[in-house]
């Protein structure tokens, strides 16, 4: 990987981590939605520098959709009933998880292989999607369809119940 791609990777990583921290910490729906959009742009940049152009396009569309849903004023907030002590314990557990992941990535011994694909790789990826793993992709598509149908049904059922 040349220096230009490396600079792009690190810049996109910074953008995506900034978006992640914004989505985690910022108050307000619009700010959270904007942070998720920033995260999607950063992730798309990371995928592009990793020679996954088609994945970058899909991720950008999906995360901008997520950002639009989170920024919407239409959904109802739900208060959690978990106490502050459990939340603090969970935050410490998240920090421990980060330390474990960083340690395992730093100390791990990984295989190095040469990448032969192109920057976009749509044809090769399509071959994997629709030939090699067609049944698995159909199953995932069915699950996604069921989730979206359930979301729509729940959204309108609650509205009608009022």
């Amino acid at each position: 990987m040349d220096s230009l791609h490396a600079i792009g990777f690190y810049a996109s990583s910074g953008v995506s981590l900034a978006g992640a921290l914004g989505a985690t910490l910022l108050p307000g729906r619009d700010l959270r939605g904007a942070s998720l959009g920033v995260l999607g742009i950063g992730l798309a940049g990371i995928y592009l520098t990793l020679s996954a152009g088609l994945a970058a396009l899909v991720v950008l569309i999906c995360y901008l959709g997520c950002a639009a849903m989170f920024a919407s004023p239409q959904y109802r907030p739900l208060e959690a009933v978990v106490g502050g002590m459990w939340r603090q314990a969970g935050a410490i557990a998240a920090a421990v998880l980060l330390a474990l992941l960083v340690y395992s990535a730093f100390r791990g011994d990984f295989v190095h292989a040469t990448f032969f694909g192109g920057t976009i790789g749509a044809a090769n990826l399509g071959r994997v999607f629709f030939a090699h793993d067609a049944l698995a992709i159909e199953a995932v598509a069915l699950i996604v369809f069921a989730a979206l149908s359930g979301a729509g049904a729940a959204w309108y059922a609650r509205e009608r119940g009022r």
Partner: protein
Amino acid sequence: MTVGLVATFFVGGGLIAAGCFAAVWRRDLTAALASIPLMFGGAGVAFAGVARFAAAGGPQLFGQEFAVVLAIAATALVALGLGIAGRVAPR
């Protein structure tokens, strides 16, 4: 300056940990749903990194395929969660 598998794992780990933190720290459960795209995005970065730097045998693009599936699944799960939460009552 170069990029390797360890750098992609660092970024993926950071995103996963940020997602875990959002899931446990947010009082508003619908706001905590933001943890799903964060964690799935972190896992997707790790998979794409493996596909780019360390996929020696088998279909080399499996990591990219899984990253695409994770992004679509994250969007569907967010839609399902917000749909279950329901609308704000009309005034």
